[in-house]
């Protein structure tokens, strides 16, 4: 490299660093051993920005959003009038009683997580309150908005935290994938029932104001442009088909306008109406290591937070010109939310369990096994126990991960896991890429063959495993395909018996808590399409099915993994 070009390169690097402009291009890379934890270079300001960014994650910032439920009428409908005509109507149509009789019951059904009792708690449990320091009387993800379309009325919608916060052993963790959300199911229900309710009847039955009625009508109109599909099982997410089906209803123009035409009416049904492409959202603490997004790595360029807004709003029937304008005018909110997501840290085993639950020598043996069998795809993790004099440090320090050597460019591998999710991307990537707003955002979707082998920090609470949740715990992951559990239950995580500490995941077989069997939509059946629990076996078994690891080595490997 000549002196001139070297100078130019270093100048451009300095410039990128000083202005904190992240590289969202397809060529982006993260040097080995480094991260993009402070992606905009906020430095000492990062904790403050992160907290403000979390507020945006907790309260949906997009005020041009297409779907808002008038909050007060909904509350009135659920809580104050048990004999409400609208309730009678819905119960008759649904042929069953609504499963809840107040707002918190509805939030609970939706799987929304509880705010911590104290917003000042430290570490991974720190979650700010979006209500000026006071604990909200609603759950995480519920967003109460005033918008330009309805400035005097409060609308309810749902934010990032609905799916990107989770509960582990009763503790709420920001960035952890929600194991039991019913957000997609909520859309399915909204699509089914809301169009049946004329606006005037809604207003009279819920004592709504005229502005709230207009909000309801706008939501009803926008729902016509939403395509939704139920997940196969609780815990999975149908965002991908949701976006694809919604886009399929819109025009072919650059802004996918919401104008019905004969050609739209003549379109064949979209493949994803029936082809299962369920997956789960990824944890936020992995973002800092990655250069491409989604479980299949198909978003190869662009800020993933902007893509998240775009996908969500296509799925809410929003006008894309309005959305583009909102994005252009709200770069600060977008930046803060992006910074917060990238700065999210993975929880540590000792945040939940006592030191007596750690066998550090076993874990060190597991590290050797890991580096022989798993490092190539999942990266290398430099533990503090390998530092000089580490044994003098407290166990918490010894077991910390000092550095992660993931890939400079995030890879995609096909290890034989269920292919339906990555196959589904092909059905609508073209439509997304040609949108004007995608071009402005510089987001590019390229279908892949396989999935991203993710960084493994905090893997102990990311169960069930694989993009499609098909493997309940790491013991099952290390089994031959045919020996893995065919069914298990996607239960909650509130108490010790909800978690298998040896196998790091859901209890299976006879260890499944009895009360879990009541929830029929939580039964995970790996024999269903898109839910297969195949693949990821070559590191454990050779081609003839002979084990590559002893049971002791597997146990050591799990001990190591739980401390990542």
């Amino acid at each position: 490299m000549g002196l001139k070009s070297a100078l130019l390169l270093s100048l451009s690097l300095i410039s990128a660093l000083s202005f904190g402009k992240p590289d969202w291009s397809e060529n982006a890379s993260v040097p080995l051993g480094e991260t993009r934890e402070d992606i905009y270079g906020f430095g000492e300001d990062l904790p403050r920005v992160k907290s403000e960014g979390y507020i945006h994650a907790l309260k949906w910032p997009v005020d041009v959003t297409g779907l808002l439920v008038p909050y007060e009428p909904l509350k009135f409908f659920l809580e104050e009038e048990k004999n409400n005509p609208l309730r009678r109507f819905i119960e008759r149509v649904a042929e069953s009683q609504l499963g809840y009789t107040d707002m918190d019951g509805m939030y609970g059904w939706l799987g929304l997580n509880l705010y911590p009792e104290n917003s000042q708690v430290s570490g991974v449990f720190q979650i700010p309150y979006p209500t000026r320091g006071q604990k909200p009387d609603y759950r995480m993800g519920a967003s109460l908005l005033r918008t330009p379309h309805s400035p005097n009325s409060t609308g309810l919608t749902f934010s990032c935290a609905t799916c990107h916060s989770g509960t582990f052993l009763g503790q709420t963790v920001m960035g952890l994938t929600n194991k039991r959300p019913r957000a997609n199911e909520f859309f399915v229900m909204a699509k089914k029932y809301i169009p049946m309710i004329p606006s005037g009847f809604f207003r009279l039955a819920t004592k709504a104001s005229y502005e709230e009625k207009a909000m309801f009508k706008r939501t009803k109109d926008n729902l016509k442009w939403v395509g939704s599909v139920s997940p196969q099982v609780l815990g999975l997410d149908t965002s991908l088909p949701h976006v694809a089906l919604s886009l399929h209803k819109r025009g072919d123009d650059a802004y996918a306008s919401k104008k019905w035409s004969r050609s739209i009416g003549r379109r064949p049904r979209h493949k994803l109406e029936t082809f299962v492409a369920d997956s789960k959202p990824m944890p936020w603490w992995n973002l800092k290591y990655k250069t491409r997004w989604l479980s299949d790595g198909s978003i190869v360029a662009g800020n993933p937070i902007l893509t998240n807004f775009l996908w969500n709003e296509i799925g809410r029937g929003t006008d894309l010109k309005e959305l583009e304008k909102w994005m252009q005018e709200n770069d600060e909110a977008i930046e803060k939310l992006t910074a917060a997501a990238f700065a999210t840290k993975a929880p540590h085993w000792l945040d939940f369990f006592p030191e007596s639950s750690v066998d550090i020598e076993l874990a060190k043996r597991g590290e050797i096994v890991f580096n022989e069998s798993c490092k190539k795809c999942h990266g290398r993790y430099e533990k503090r126990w390998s530092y000089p004099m580490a044994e003098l440090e407290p166990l918490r320090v010894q077991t910390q991960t000092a550095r992660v050597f993931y890939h400079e460019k995030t890879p995609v591998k096909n290890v034989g896991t269920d292919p339906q999710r990555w196959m589904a991307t092909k059905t609508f990537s073209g439509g997304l890429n040609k949108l004007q707003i995608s071009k402005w955002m510089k987001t590019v979707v390229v279908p892949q063959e396989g999935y991203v082998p993710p960084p493994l920090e905090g893997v102990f609470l990311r169960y069930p495993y694989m993009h499609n949740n098909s493997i309940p715990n790491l013991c099952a992951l290390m089994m031959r395909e045919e020996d893995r559990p065919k069914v298990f239950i996607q239960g909650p995580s509130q108490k010790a018996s909800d978690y298998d500490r040896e196998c790091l995941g859901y209890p299976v077989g006879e260890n499944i808590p009895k009360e879990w069997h009541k929830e029929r939509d939580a039964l995970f059946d790996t024999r269903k399409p898109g839910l297969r629990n195949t693949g990821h076996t070559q590191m454990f078994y050779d081609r003839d099915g002979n084990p590559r690891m002893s049971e002791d080595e597997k146990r050591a490997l799990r001990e190591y993994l739980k401390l990542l």
Partner: protein
Amino acid sequence: MKKIVAALSLILILTLGVVYFFSQQPPEILVESDISLPLDQEEKPTAKNKEPLVKTEDSKGAPKKAAPVSSSPKSSFPEALSEEEVEELDELLAHYEEEWDKDTKNLFLNELKLSEEDYEDYLMMRDGFEEDRVEAFQEFHNRMAQEKGSSYSYSPTAEMVENEERIRGEYLKLFKERYGEEAFVKYSNLLEGYNDRIRREADPKHGVLRIDF
């Protein structure tokens, strides 16, 4: 006048009948009609304003008072109703309303063996229908005024008819879902029979009334 009037439509059957409505500025906005129908001046609804968009007693498809026809250049339009004629029409509407109330109550409570609550839900649907219809009409007027200026004239359009039918369709669907197929068929038969009777009894010079819901 009671609420039912909302569900009554004046079917404008005079040949090439055109409807005139008075909206924001009654003397200036020309609304073509065989019978002049005034829409009361109203405020833009706000969150605090829980009153209907339009004072529906006066705008449920039938006027309390005849509105004056403006000095339109189109001299061939029919004259407005006299005050006596309007009163007559009012009485007629009240009469049909009362009868329709009785018939529907009988249908719900005696024939279909439904409860008082069920009947009240129906009355609420009827009010909602009226409100939505008036609102859709108002939206249409506002748009026309925006597009064509404060003084405009128009003929009943396919869009208006479509709007009306869409809203009616929504309520009929709601009825069917709420009370079931059998109740819906009986209700539809009652409605059809009642409208046939009104048509037979109608005085053509006043147009024909129809119950929509």
